[in-house]
């Protein structure tokens, strides 16, 4: 009580000395807080995983994470259908009441265009 009280009273009596002391304390606190903020980002080292081995006496194997492929946008490529032989076009041929033989509901209709020469 004696020495500290005396120093306190001395500081109160000399405002300039008190101001310097207070500023020093503030700067020290600020420096301490700044250091904490830099560490808030977490560890910057690459995390590793240690494979747990159920068998005692076996040296743990360190498994390093491998780089994973970044998801890329997939673009559908146009596909071309190879055709060995071109398919002839289908024509809707009218038959009217032209001469014919065979059942009218036959699965296959053949229409011939011809002349007699």
């Amino acid at each position: 009580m004696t020495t500290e009280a005396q120093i306190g009273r001395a500081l109160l009596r000399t405002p300039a000395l008190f101001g310097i002391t207070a500023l020093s304390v503030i700067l020290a606190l600020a420096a301490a807080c700044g250091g904490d903020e830099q560490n808030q980002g977490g560890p910057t080292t690459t995390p590793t995983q240690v494979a747990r081995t159920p068998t005692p006496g076996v040296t743990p194997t360190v498994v390093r994470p491998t780089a994973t492929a970044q998801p890329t946008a997939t673009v559908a490529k146009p596909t071309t259908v190879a055709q060995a032989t071109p398919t002839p076009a289908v024509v809707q041929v009218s038959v009217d009441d032209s001469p014919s033989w065979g059942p009218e509901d036959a699965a296959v209709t053949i229409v011939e265009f011809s002349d007699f020469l």
Partner: protein
Amino acid sequence: MQTLPQIKQAYEGKIRFVFRNFPVHGDPAVKAAEAALCADDQGKFWEYQDVLFAHQSALDVASLKSYAAQLGLDTATFDQCLDEGEKTAEVQKDAQDARSYGVGGTPAFFINGRLVSGAQSFSVFQRAIDAALTGGASGTPIPTVPSSGG
């Protein structure tokens, strides 16, 4: 053996065969086509067609009428049909349709709507017909639609 009889024998009951005219060899061919349709009015188209194919060098009007008589047709009716051009419009319509379908020569065949040009062998028709019967690429059955004005 000719192709058409082979087709008829192999696929009897399974296919329908339709004949349409496309006279590309001048007036005699046109008149022969009309005569065949006149014979069709009396139910003798296919028989008359066989006679025409057997006498392709003699298709004048007199000969056409004589062929009808040989087949036992009513010659008065036949002659009137031929002389008055009762089938002229029908033959013209056939030819017009043939051109619109892309037919460029005779004979031309549409098997379920797919064009087969020229006088092909039986095996060619066999492949096309078999494919059409099984619904293959060469022939998906399609309905035939009557054309206007026919």
